[in-house]
């Protein structure tokens, strides 16, 4: 099974970078990565379609801001929740669900299994290269959670 682990975010926009950071960390700890591609991308909406085509399984890491969220918390989401994370919706264009449906209609090979991990963040409005401390210190726990969830699947 060919798997893509795709981290979304902007590396210079504070916590927005968390999806990218998590992919970098997962690359270090996943033992047998022959059938896994690790991709970091600053994209949203339909452009995600360009990245995921041709894979059997997709693991997406993105950020989210909830009204009463606790920064660093990780949530596993299903397709029906897809429109509410940071980059799966696009303020300029189309959301991910529509993109997937479009891809299917025009005959693209869309992954059959799609898992989304959304990480609660604190700040994504200020340009800086560092994450907020709460999000930074949560990284080991987030990695443990994802690895535990996917035991035997990587």
């Amino acid at each position, binding site marked *: 099974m060919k798997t893509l682990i795709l981290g979304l975010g902007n*590396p210079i926009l504070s916590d927005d970078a968390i999806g990218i950071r998590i992919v970098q960390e997962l690359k270090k700890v996943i033992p047998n990565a022959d059938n896994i591609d690790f991709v970091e991308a600053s994209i949203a909406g339909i452009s995600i379609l360009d990245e995921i085509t041709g894979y059997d399984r997709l693991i997406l890491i993105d950020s989210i801001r909830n*009204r009463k969220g606790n920064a660093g918390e990780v949530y596993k989401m299903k397709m029906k929740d897809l429109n509410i994370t940071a980059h799966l919706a696009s303020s300029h*264009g189309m959301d991910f669900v529509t993109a997937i449906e479009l891809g299917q209609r025009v005959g693209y090979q869309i992954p059959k299994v799609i898992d989304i991990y959304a990480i609660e963040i604190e700040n994504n*409005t200020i340009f*800086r290269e560092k994450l907020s401390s709460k999000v930074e210190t949560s990284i080991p726990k987030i990695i443990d959670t994802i690895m535990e969830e996917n035991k035997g699947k990587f």
Partner: protein
Amino acid sequence: MKCITIDPITRLEGHGKIEIFLNDEGNVEKAYLQIPELRGFEQFCEGRAAEEMPRITPRICGVCPTAHHIASAKALDDLFKVEPTSPAKKIRELMYSAFVIEDHIFHFFFLGAPEFITGLKVPAAQRNILGVIDKVGLEIGGKVIEVRKRTRKIITLIGGKVVHPVCGLPGGVSKVLTEENRKEIKDAAEYAVEFGKFALKLFDDVVLKNKEYLDLIAGDVYKHRTYYMGLVDKNNKVNFYDGDLRVVDPDGKEFAKFNPRDYADYIEERPSVWTYVKFPYLKKIGWKGLVDGKDSGIFRVAPLARLNASDGMPTPLAQEAYEKMYDVLGGKPVHNTLAFHWARLIESLCGAERMLELAKDPEITDPNIRNIPTEIPTEGVGVVEAPRGTLIHHYKTDKRGILTDVNLIVATQHNAPAMCMSVEKAAKSLIKEGKVDDALLNMVEMAFRAYDPCHACATHSLPGQMPLEINIHNSEGKIIKTLEQS
């Protein structure tokens, strides 16, 4: 892992937020549109080496990275006082033309067309590309995808990466094009020309032959008599990559024409207490508030503005389409905001024709792609026509080339005052004596789509398409109704 209730924040503070204030009679007194801005970009850049800017600035925005990259490379040419070689300019313009095609086609078919092709009264959930495909057929959807794919491939081929190109350097570009590259580019350009013709024919058949749509485009909705600005070549024809900035008045007469380096002599920015966005206006006319007309310094940019500010298109098929648009809409300039969509398709065809011209130019494979800068840097300005309008990059450095001051004026900022006027006009026509017509949200959304504001430029993390909230306040300032796009 805990089970929690997901309750995401649907907008950043101030994002796409509209405040409407009513008077004692319940009619609209004033309406304000707040567009947010990400903070700290200038400070983020200051202290860094200027030559990093073409790689940093595309990261502001996932929508028009190529525009930021090229504007930044041009600002570096000016900063280091080095003229790019002729082949380098052509390679940059070639990549930029591919980007204009891709962006315009994407906008029209994915954002603009659903309003017209699926029907104005169709529920919002069906007003998207899937609704368009249902109406016009899967084959057309496939063509849209194909032209996007081919033009993005050309951007990747020249720029290194499609999302964040890296080819632009002060004085030129980093990579020579081979004969094999040239052939591939020529094939893609030919496909794009055919697609551009097809898209205008579709617009003709589906939109212009429908009286309801034509009336909407040509009618008074969102009609604002403003000034218009855009880059023009030496013949005053539209140019996306280079030239002088030309401004025409609401009667279509030339008001100013200047080297982009002198932008600050013509354009002033005005801060406001209720939004982060600084409103640009024409310095010599002055700021008269959010009103249109010859005495108000408000100007517009983007496709229709570029066509209004020019004397025509530089390529033959686009010129034909340009003449047709002005014939149908009653001559120049056209003030109807919904005509931005039509102008967008004309520009897309122009981009394709220009791309083809450049692909056939023998100089495009010339290996002389860079002049090496030798001067001490001080200050530089770079301007391109982004799909959404004039984009200005302005850098100052110390003698080592370390940035001391950075100013960017993005297209959405130029159009922000006009967008506020469109919102107010829609509000005035749909709120009477305290009664709010449910069409308000849709009307505001249509105006937004025509301008194609680059919200992603300001805000990456926004759930939902174009989040929008409208608060209506009574004469005492209390919120009496909130409309939200679900």
